């Protein structure tokens, strides 16, 4: 431990002016330093590849919904943020849903969600995954309950650009999920 110096100050020190000048040069040096802040909405920092943002409901290449409403994500969810209602696919809806059963209602309460990513891990159909979107804003609490229209990824045929953008470089064909055809 360094003891506190109780020496009386010399005349030079008591003039304070040299010390003040020294301090002023230190602050002046900070003018040329690189700022840590970025201009946030215009500029963003790159995310790490495992970043977990808002959920997205996936479609396959032909635009059919992957989800079969098995409920594994809802079971896995520690915050109990996910609710869903299953329905049976009618004949003629094959272009909409990939399998015979689908989620008629699928809701995630984003105020409850803790973005742990367990739903993504539980999903056997690669239907739900976490995107890089992370700052939802709304005027009402009910606006944070995301339904299917909010969650579904854009249609790959009708809007391929938005689809590619939403997928980003994540959610590539996952390995070892057991859902390879």
């Amino acid at each position, binding site marked *: 431990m360094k003891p506190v110096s109780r020496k009386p100050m010399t005349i030079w020190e008591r003039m304070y002016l040299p010390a*003040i000048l020294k*301090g*002023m040069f*230190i*602050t*002046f040096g*900070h*003018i040329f*330093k690189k*700022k*840590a*802040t970025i*201009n946030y909405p215009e500029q963003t920092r790159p995310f790490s590849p495992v970043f977990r943002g808002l959920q997205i409901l996936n479609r396959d290449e032909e635009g059919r919904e992957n989800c079969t409403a098995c409920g594994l994500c809802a079971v896995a969810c520690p915050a109990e943020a996910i609710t869903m209602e299953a329905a049976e696919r009618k004949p003629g809806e094959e272009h909409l849903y990939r399998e015979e059963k689908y989620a008629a209602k699928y809701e995630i309460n984003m105020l409850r969600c803790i973005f742990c990513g367990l739903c993504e891990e539980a999903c056997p159909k690669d239907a739900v995954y976490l995107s890089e979107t992370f700052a939802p804003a709304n005027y009402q609490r009910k606006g944070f309950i995301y339904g299917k229209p909010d969650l579904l990824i854009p249609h790959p045929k009708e809007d391929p650009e938005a689809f590619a953008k939403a997928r980003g470089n994540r959610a590539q064909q996952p390995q070892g999920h057991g859902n390879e055809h």
Partner: protein
Amino acid sequence: MPITHTLLAIDWAVFTEKLILIVSVVSASLVVAMYSTYAERKVAAIIQDRRGPNRAGPFGILQPLADGMKLFFKEEIIPNFSSKFLFILGPCLAMLTAIMVGAVIPWGNKIHIFNRDISLQIADINIGILYVFGVVSLGVYGIMIGGWASNNKFSLMGAMRAASQIISYELAMGISIIALLMVTGTLSLKEMVDQQTDHWWNIMKQPLGFLIFLICAFAETNRTPFDLAEAENELVGGYHVEYSSMKLGFYLFAEYINMFLSSAVMVSLYFGGYDIPFVNDISSINTLGVNWLAVLQGACFFAKIACFIFLFMWVRWTIPRFRYDQLMNLGWKILLPLALFNMLVTGALILLKQNHWHF
């Protein structure tokens, strides 16, 4: 009635020229003060490795307008227990005295339009610097009346602190100026600037006097390290606790106008005023013409002022605030004797020079 007619005859040309000059000087001080608030926030941000206001307009250039608008739209509270007339008079006085200093500052030499030589000084009174001191002393009333009229213990104490600080530092400031007056032999700011255009700047002749003046100017304008009048983080808010809306805005704004005009006074007294450094102003009249020279001189003057304003801000974001007893010690026990010593030495040297350096 011919006699009254001649008596009442006003030289309308002079009247208009002065009116235009007054309007432009007042609006220039207001605009400079406005953008000083922006500059202050930017300088603070940059020194602290931040970015500062950058949302209102490009580079946040409209921020002062937004701040002013905000202050105007705030609810105006005049406390029930206050003395209403004085409560309103306080910020008015602070603003008035701040702006009035601009009247005697020579903003440039002269311009020549419509076959008339127009001096770029509102009033070249031969006691210019005394006028500055008189008006600056009046500034205490703005603070004192504001604190008193609020009828609140805290604002009264804040006002007392501010008033005693300003009065203490005025003394050393005045004496440091006396030494300068002995050197220049004139009280007129215009003549002082003219002397400096021909010879050395006064800073060369009075370095110690300038240092004392500078420190006192910091204290007079209530800037850090002497901003005990406001002391945002340890006092409730000093003399303007009870003020809100644009009245508070006027008090804060007056500080920036004071800063601008005290920079202008310091530049005129010690740094050659509108003199362009390293250029012979008199010979460049022939090459440039009077008007262009006046423009250059004005620009030069404002550049010097900008440097001083930056110095004010730079110091503010470097040095912490003095304790009250330290402030009083510095004012009475150090600056005042130092100023007296400076005056004495200056006087002795002038006497010696008059005797051709014989004792």
